């Protein structure tokens, strides 16, 4: 058995015995700064835009629907099952497929449409990051397969950064099999270090901040 063999080698090399207690690891280092909501919104927008993402700030859920309707403009889209998108009336916009709960169907639809619409569980303003937690409401593929991704996020979900995220969610695995942080459009620089967007994931990312 490689398992026991490897663990035995590790213990012998370290001079430890099986089940031997361990001193406490260094204390967790999380520093959550105070940043006012308006500043968070401004920082979030500037970070996303610096990465060639787009942002919009709309005052109401109604206005969010209008914005997304304008962005769809005759193209095809898939919306995740996020209740917030339903509340905004985005899920019922013409040309939007939603309510898909079967993986085969979701894959086929996401591989075909022009735009994937999601909400986000959190956003991190100091890096311009969207936090996507997989659940019955949010699939992984909606923000991944279509060439464009629109995320509609109520302002109160904007956190200061990674430190605040891990203060709120000390163990994301307790609630999901997948948490993905998205910071701007997919990119590569593998050919002569020339930056190209949209290699495997969406080349366009739009963050709509509501409120």
């Amino acid at each position, binding site marked *: 058995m490689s398992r026991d063999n490897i663990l035995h080698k590790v213990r012998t090399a370290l001079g430890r015995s099986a089940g*031997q207690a361990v001193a406490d690891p260094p204390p967790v280092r999380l520093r959550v700064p105070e940043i006012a909501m308006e500043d968070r919104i401004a920082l979030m927008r500037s970070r996303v835009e610096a990465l060639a993402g787009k942002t919009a700030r709309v005052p109401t859920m109604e206005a969010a629907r209008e914005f997304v309707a304008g962005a769809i403009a005759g193209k095809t889209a898939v919306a995740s099952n996020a209740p917030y998108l339903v509340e905004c009336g985005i899920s019922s916009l013409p040309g939007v497929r939603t309510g898909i709960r079967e993986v085969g169907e979701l894959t086929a639809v996401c591989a075909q449409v022009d735009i994937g619409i999601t909400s986000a569980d959190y956003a991190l303003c100091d890096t311009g990051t969207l936090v996507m937690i997989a659940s019955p409401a949010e699939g992984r593929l909606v923000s991944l397969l279509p060439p464009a991704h629109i995320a509609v996020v109520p302002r109160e979900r904007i956190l200061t950064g990674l430190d605040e995220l891990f203060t709120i969610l000390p163990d994301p695995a307790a609630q999901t099999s997948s948490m993905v942080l998205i910071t701007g459009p997919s990119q590569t620089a593998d050919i002569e270090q020339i930056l190209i967007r949209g290699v495997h994931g969406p080349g366009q990312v739009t963050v709509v901040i509501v409120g």
Partner: protein
Amino acid sequence: MSVEFDRKIHDTLADANLQLAVYTATGRLKDKRIQVTAAGVLPDYQELRTQANAIKKHVIDNLDHYLEEFERNVESHGGKVVYCKDATDVSDFVLDLAKRRGSRLIVKSKSMTTEEVDLNERLAHHGLESVETDLGEYILQLAHERPYHIVAPALHKTRYDVADLFTKELGVARETVPEKLTLIARGVLREKFLKADIGISGANFLIADSGAVAIIENEGNVRLTTSAPKIHIAVAGIEKVIPRAQDLAVFLKLLARSATGQLVSVYTSFLAGPRRAGEVDGPEEFYVVLLDNGRTKLLPDRSKRESLYCIRCGACLNACPVYRKIGGHSFPWVYSGPIGAIITPQFMGVSHEPGLPFASSLCGACGEVCPVKIDIPKILLELRGDVRKSEAREGLNRIEKLAFRIFAWVMTHPRIYEMAGRMAASIAPTGDGKWIRSVPAPMSVGPLKAWLSERDMPPLPPKSFREMWRNR
């Protein structure tokens, strides 16, 4: 130094295009790292390094404990941990699983660990198609080459090289615009993603308290590899474990900054087990392969053990004046640059390439940029000692030892020293006040020739210090 190592270095130095490509690419990465780690941008950069080092030290010193905790928690989420001692173990596991599930096509995201064990070649040998999906790695797979750099694997390839390769291997019309080349690859690989039964990824961190793996990338191919196929296998070295998900707040800030000069990478995937009840998508099966492949050999030595703190950011390569001249393919194994120079001898044995720990000017740049504060120059020195000890055991360095004994004897006898100095001055070329780049034939023999061929000498002054002292 082996003949092979020497030849590859000379070939790289003689290739002007390659020199320019490597120097430019590493220079750009180096500058970007400096910008995003500057005190004005990240005031607590040094504290984060100290914390990262302390966490890594704690984990490696108690590695068995954290591996077992990780394993328990992966299993509590319905995943499975597979320990593998070497390359054969890994390929046997994948082959067996593929056979049982009737899988033929595998998509792979970038993983230095799988490069270590030549996984693609082993799978191909048994009729499985395993496709690299990171653009750089895909290019290298088509070219049958090893990564040139830990984070920028195809940095030695020009757009024209890639154009030729795609035309030859994919039968497409020749395109030399990087955007178009990228689109071609996207098209080919998108189909593979949607057809593949198994996705194999690496892992940047194994998180013990969550039973999760964290994977960092920019392209989205890791997300596709780990979400689209029914089976996800993450392959990682046993040293990749960290205690808590909360520690990611430290490591994520350091990794992207050090690797590519980004604040964070475009995508960070935190994956804990297969798709759960109610979740819409994600794999049905989730495996983590924990690979030893020589890592346990690094543990007994308390000092050199810190080589295992490495998070594979590649910053030491970009900072290294030697890497920037001799490039990634001169190095004898998959890991290049300063980190390659310290881990390769420890994984493969110092006599595998005795020249390796000496391929450094000991300038200290690598240690200075290392985000987890590995004292690379110190370990290089220790390994030089190990090389000499091993050579002494094999009786290889008799001439060198004799030379140093003579040198020591001369240095401890002032009169002899002065005489030797005068003698050397009388036969050495003057260089006409310029650096002496070659020595006359009688001195250019045997080991002395090899030693002198790599070194230029300053011209001898007209008077020695002793003479000037006497005449003051």
